[in-house]
């Protein structure tokens, strides 16, 4: 691949299956889609890419990514995480605030935003902290972050729950002024002290302190009620239990502005994984049961859960190659998310490709307020696209992932669907399944 890339943002993508529905060519000129149809002529100076057999989706959008920069550049950087995202089919990611220093000021969010622009692989949209230092005590300067160059709209103390109901109420109210949303890590801390894994049969057997489902559900119920009361917007991070799905269904039936995301690992893996005591399976909220998986898949199909988000959480080797209790929670997710959604949702017939676009691109872009993302291919739309080979399969090799960390629970597992190409405003960030920079 020695072709000069920088100048090329005009393409003719030939014969792609657009949203898995109809075969068409997609013409891109200067980063914008100019035509979608059969037998198109190549725009001037365009490269031609034969996409026969590939599905074209709007570029995926991740509502929940930990890029670790600033602070833990040994685990991930904005650039390495952006590369992993592009390889996973993403054109935009929302970077969580729990960096060091915490993204609780306009200065830090702008720094992350600029690092993302410099890397140029995906649009990195910073999430701001709700409280100073994620400490839950003093509200961060949400307005300043909203007004900054980063235009922050999602605020989250993720990693920690905004546990104090008064703080949560105030935050929900305050962000209404600038169209913000509070993304809650739902975990009642008084019920999860020292918790290591899902509380149930396996925690009892393995002697690991339990993280009960009710600790998530109680906070979601409370926050839905608060959201309804103050008529604000709540987004629930990484929903992991069947009970949470039921509460969300009820809250939505009230017309409250509540959205929710689910992580790929919660659609696939169960708490049985803890039995090896390998902390690569330790994540927060924890892996749960088959019944939860079933409810989450159904909720995602139904739309009670609006979006899939990765909770991509890279960790350095020393934070995972240790005793379970000493390990940090979290797992890589950006490069495996699409394949797991195909495996858990598309293959069983719960979602079609348009449904994948809805849950992984259009809806998350709408929740995050990202302009130019999550839009179906059509004339005049920025060319943020991903091309997927639905018939290919691949086997996860941790060392081959683009992340600086290796903490994937999927090592040696084989998954359907590969990302062949990703375009960010007409520029190919991934071609032939490889990052271009």
């Amino acid at each position: 691949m020695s072709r000069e890339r920088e100048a090329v943002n005009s393409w003719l993508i030939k014969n792609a299956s657009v949203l898995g529905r109809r075969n068409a060519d997609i013409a891109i000129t200067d980063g914008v889609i100019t035509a979608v149809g059969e037998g198109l002529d190549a725009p001037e100076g365009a490269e031609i890419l034969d996409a026969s057999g590939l599905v074209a989706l709007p570029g995926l959008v991740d509502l929940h990514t930990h890029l670790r920069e600033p602070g833990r550049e040994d685990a991930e950087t904005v650039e390495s995480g952006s590369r992993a995202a592009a390889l996973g089919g993403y054109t935009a990611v929302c970077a969580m605030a729990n960096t060091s220093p915490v993204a609780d000021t306009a200065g830090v969010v702008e720094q992350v935003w600029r690092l993302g622009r410099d890397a140029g692989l995906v649009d990195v949209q910073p999430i701001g902290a709700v409280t100073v230092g994620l400490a839950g005590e003093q509200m961060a300067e949400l307005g300043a972050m909203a007004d900054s160059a980063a235009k922050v709209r999602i605020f989250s103390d993720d990693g920690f729950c905004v546990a104090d109901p008064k703080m949560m109420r105030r935050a929900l109210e305050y962000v209404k002024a600038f169209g913000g949303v509070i993304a809650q890590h739902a975990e009642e801390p008084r019920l999860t002290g020292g918790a290591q894994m899902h509380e149930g049969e396996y925690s009892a057997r393995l002697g690991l302190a339990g993280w009960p489902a009710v600790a998530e559900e109680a906070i979601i119920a409370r926050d839905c009620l608060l959201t309804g009361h103050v008529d604000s917007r709540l987004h629930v991070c990484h929903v992991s239990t069947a009970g949470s799905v039921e509460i969300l269904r009820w809250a939505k039936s009230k017309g409250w502005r509540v959205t929710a995301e689910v992580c790929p690992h919660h659609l696939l893996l169960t708490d049985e994984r803890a039995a090896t005591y390998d902390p690569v399976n330790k994540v927060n909220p924890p892996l749960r049961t088959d019944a939860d998986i079933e409810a989450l898949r159904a909720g995602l199909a139904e739309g009670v859960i609006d979006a899939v988000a990765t909770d991509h959480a890279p960790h350095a080797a020393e934070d995972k190659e240790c005793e379970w209790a000493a390990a940090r929670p979290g797992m890589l997710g950006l490069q495996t998310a699409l394949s797991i959604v195909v495996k858990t949702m598309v293959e069983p017939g719960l979602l079609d490709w348009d449904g994948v676009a809805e849950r992984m691109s259009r809806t998350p872009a709408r929740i995050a307020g990202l302009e130019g993302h999550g839009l179906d291919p059509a004339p005049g739309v920025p060319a943020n696209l991903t091309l997927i080979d639905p018939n290919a399969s691949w086997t996860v090799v941790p060392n081959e992932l683009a992340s600086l960390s290796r903490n994937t629970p999927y090592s040696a597992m084989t998954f359907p669907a590969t990302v062949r190409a990703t375009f960010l405003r007409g520029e190919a960030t991934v071609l032939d399944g490889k990052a271009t920079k």
Partner: protein
Amino acid sequence: MITHLLSAADLDRDTATLLLDTARQLGAALSGREVKKLPTLRGRTVVNLFYEDSTRTRVSFEAAAKRLSADVVNFSAKGSSVSKGESLKDTAWTLQAMGADAVVIRHPASGAAHRLAQWVDGHVLNAGDGTHEHPTQALLDAYTMRERMGRLEGLRVAIVGDVLHSRVARSNVLLLNTLGAEVTLVAPPTLLPVGVESWPAGVEYDFDAVLPKTDVVMMLRVQRERMTDSFFPSVREYSRRYGLDVRRAGLLPDDALVMHPGPMVRGMEIAPEVADSPRSAIVEQVANGVLVRMAALYLLLSGEKGAGE
């Protein structure tokens, strides 16, 4: 034979029985002898890797290894940072480089023995990992019960106290079930794990109702920190409902056995008169510990594949 002894679940009925039989033969072979030492593990190295203070368990393993003529290296890791995980992996590599044939590990984190077994080639014996398991304690308890009661099959065993945080309870439930005993757990509901219904054991909250139907009662230790974390209202109330006092001991069948993995909180968990009565097996439990640990070391360490030439 098995490679490691990490959980009582590693032992099927035949292996567990072989282990207890071996312990018994070792006891017979050593009784009344001048030389309390066997040459069996001469030239092999057993490392005692203790991240927690536990003099009785460490000494028991040390005596067991030495009576089989193994070289014993005591590696007390307490005080070195446990919150930093590298220490266990780095230590594992050190032990690997030393050529440790077996590592006996005591660690405050559940699963630490499993992790160690993933990193070293030698045999790993779990001498207690967090709130997970303590399989050799269960073996010595089963050995003591079998010696005193003559059988394990059909024996009705009540395990009483802080089941939630007890590695002894977990290992005993698994092993006793494997060996055919019927286990009943007796505790306040706050000290039973969610998910206990999946264990091969019954659950009762009423100690008095269980006692007349019990052949062996095993009293678990209640750690001090539980007393201030809302697991029960007060020491007095706990003792009144779940302590083995003289009146309760009187509800037991005449030939019933009283056990405690120690160290005991006399008065709270068990009345001194009960702990020191002839039906108590608390002292012989200690002596039997050396025998079962010898048996475990012998069965794990002899006959390593590819060794010897």
